[in-house]
């Protein structure tokens, strides 16, 4: 089934913008209430990953770092597809790839255990819980697609796509 784009954005991931997009997602005019709830939660998690960790960023008032990246939401009659793309260091792309492989090879209960361990052992503060990707897969119950697109010897673009079933 072909997908149509319902939201596409490239630029800084300000919280104000994420919040407005999130409200639009919640208010999508369809009957897939549970799928929209999941899409909203996954949207917030992965968008905030871009905002927090993108290597391309704006500094606001020389204090706050706002990551720059891309997002896209597409849909067909059966699924929503949500993608984020942002710049990462080459070494971080390898770490992310390994993490995606681990998450994709884990069953739901293994992910739940991994999430608990990761949250308990996370340093917190500015590092957060570091469980956004696990949460996205647990919510969607689908494996994530990922792509590491090399820019040069220092950076890559890393794309993550999550499929959310409508029913």
């Amino acid at each position: 089934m072909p997908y149509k784009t319902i939201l596409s954005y490239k630029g800084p991931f300000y919280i104000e913008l994420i919040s407005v997009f999130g409200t639009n997602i919640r208010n999508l005019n369809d009957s897939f209430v549970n799928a929209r709830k999941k899409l909203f939660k996954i949207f917030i998690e992965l968008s905030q990953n871009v905002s927090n960790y993108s290597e391309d960023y704006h500094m606001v008032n020389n204090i706050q770092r706002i990551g720059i990246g891309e997002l896209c939401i597409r849909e067909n009659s059966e699924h929503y597809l949500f993608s984020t793309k942002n710049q990462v260091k080459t070494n971080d792309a390898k770490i992310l790839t390994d993490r995606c492989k681990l998450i994709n090879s884990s069953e739901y209960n293994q992910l739940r255990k991994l999430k608990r361990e990761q949250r308990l052992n996370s340093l917190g503060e500015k590092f957060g819980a570091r469980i956004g990707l696990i949460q996205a897969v647990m919510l969607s119950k689908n494996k994530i697609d990922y792509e590491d697109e090399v820019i040069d010897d220092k950076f890559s673009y890393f794309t993550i796509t999550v499929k959310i079933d409508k029913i």
Partner: protein
Amino acid sequence: MENIVLTTSPETPYFPEVNFDVQSGTCEIKGESYMEETYKFYLPLITWIKEYCDSNNEIVFNIKLIYLNTSTTKCLLDMLELLKKFEEKGGKVQVNWYYDKSDPDMVDEVEDFEAEAGIKINLIEKE
């Protein structure tokens, strides 16, 4: 020690409503929580709980969050761990988590909090 009262605004729906009341010993967090720099927002609340527990015997913690991001879950876990320590020292703790039955993922989330913090959480279905 002073109460903490924070209200929400339609312009900033990513901040929750907060009401930490010294006299009644009741703490309530309500709404949504997915702000930037989550720890900066929650640090005063964590500090408040520490100070309150140092000089009181009883606390009620009501969580009425419709949505919380994973960074918020880390801060909530820090608070629940403090309450667990308070309980181990003889304090009386009641944690109530109000949830919407149309959100099938929230019950699993609460079970995970119980397991991670080692504290009893009363799941209460919202009317």
